[in-house]
C-alpha cells in the first residue's frame, strides 16, 4: 500500500513511526484500518499543521523526553543530597553500634 506524503504526514501527526504502523496495520486490519485511521486524524492534522510551533508525534515525544531530563544543576543537587544521606546513614549506624543497639555488622542484637 503506497501512501501519499500527505497521508504519511497525517499519520505522523499521531503515531511515532508511520511506516512501521502501516506495516503492522496491514497485517492486523488491512488497508481499511489504514484508511480509517488517516480519515479519522486528517481533520486534526489539518487544523494543527498551520500552527507556527507545529510538531508531529515523534517531535512531541522527543520534546517531552527532553523536558523530563533533569538539568545539570538538578543532577548536581541530587548527587550532593545523596552524599549527605549516605554520610548521615553511616554516622547513625556507627552511633547505634557504639550504643549497643546494633551489632558490628549492622544488625539487631539477638
Amino acid at each position, binding site marked *: 500500500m503506497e501512501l501519499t506524503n500527505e497521508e504519511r504526514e497525517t499519520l505522523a501527526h499521531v503515531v511515532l513511526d508511520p511506516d512501521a504502523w502501516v506495516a503492522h496495520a496491514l497485517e492486523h486490519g488491512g488497508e481499511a484500518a489504514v484508511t480509517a*485511521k488517516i480519515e479519522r486524524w486528517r481533520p486534526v492534522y489539518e487544523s494543527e499543521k498551520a500552527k507556527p510551533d507545529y510538531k508531529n508525534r515523534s517531535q512531541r515525544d522527543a520534546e517531552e523526553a527532553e523536558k523530563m531530563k533533569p538539568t545539570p544543576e538538578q*543532577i548536581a543537587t*541530587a548527587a550532593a543530597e545523596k552524599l549527605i544521606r549516605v554520610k*548521615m546513614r553511616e554516622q547513625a549506624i556507627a552511633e547505634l553500634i557504639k550504643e549497643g543497639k546494633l551489632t558490628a555488622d549492622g544488625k539487631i542484637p539477638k
Partner: protein
Amino acid sequence: MANQRILATEEMVGYGHATKADTLNRHGFIEHLEDGTHQKAMSHLTASRLMKCDASKIPASSAMAETATGEVTNASQPAFLVTNASKQENMADAATLVFGTEIFDQGGDFAANTFTAPVTGRYQLSFIAYLLAIDSGSSVLHIRLITSNRSYYYFISPAVLASDPGYWHIAGSILADMDAADTAYLTFNYTGGAQQVDLEVLSFFSGFLAC
C-alpha cells in the same frame, strides 16, 4: 385495555394503516411475513421492564450471554491479562517489558509483548511493574505505556531515597483511545544511575475494550 399486543386483526401492521392510540408506545420491533402479517418478536413495554422478548427469536449463537440474575458477559469482547514468565534483569533504558505468559487473551490480540486493538474504541489498559534493585542514583525513572496515539508516563524520583530499595512497584491505568490496528506496550526508562533494575515475576499487563 386488556389486550396489550398488536394483533393482525387490528390492522396496525404495514404501510397505510391509520394510527391508533395507546398501542404505538408499547411496541419496539415486529417481525413480518412476506404477505404482511406480523409475527411475534418483541412486545409489551411496561414500567417495570424494558421489553419482553419471544425467546425463540433471540439468536442462539450470540457471544453475549445474560444470566438469570442479569449479569452479562461477552466471549468476543477483546480482553487480555499477561504476566512475565521470568525475571527481566538489568533492564536498559527504554527496554520493552516482556510478558511471555498469557493468563487469558480473549480475541487473540496480544503477541510479542504488544496488544493490538482489533477495532476502534476506548480500551482500559492497566499494569503492575514489580521492580527490584532501583538505583537511588537515578534522578528519574518511569514506566511508559506507549499506544499508537499517545504515550502515558508513570514516574518516580529515586534520587530522594536514602538507599536503593529492594522492592518497588509502579502501577498505572488509563482509558485509552485506540484505532483499529493500534498497538500498546510498556517500556522501562531511567536517567542516571546504574543499569541494574530487574522486572520481577508477578508483573502484569491487562486491558479490555470498554466502549
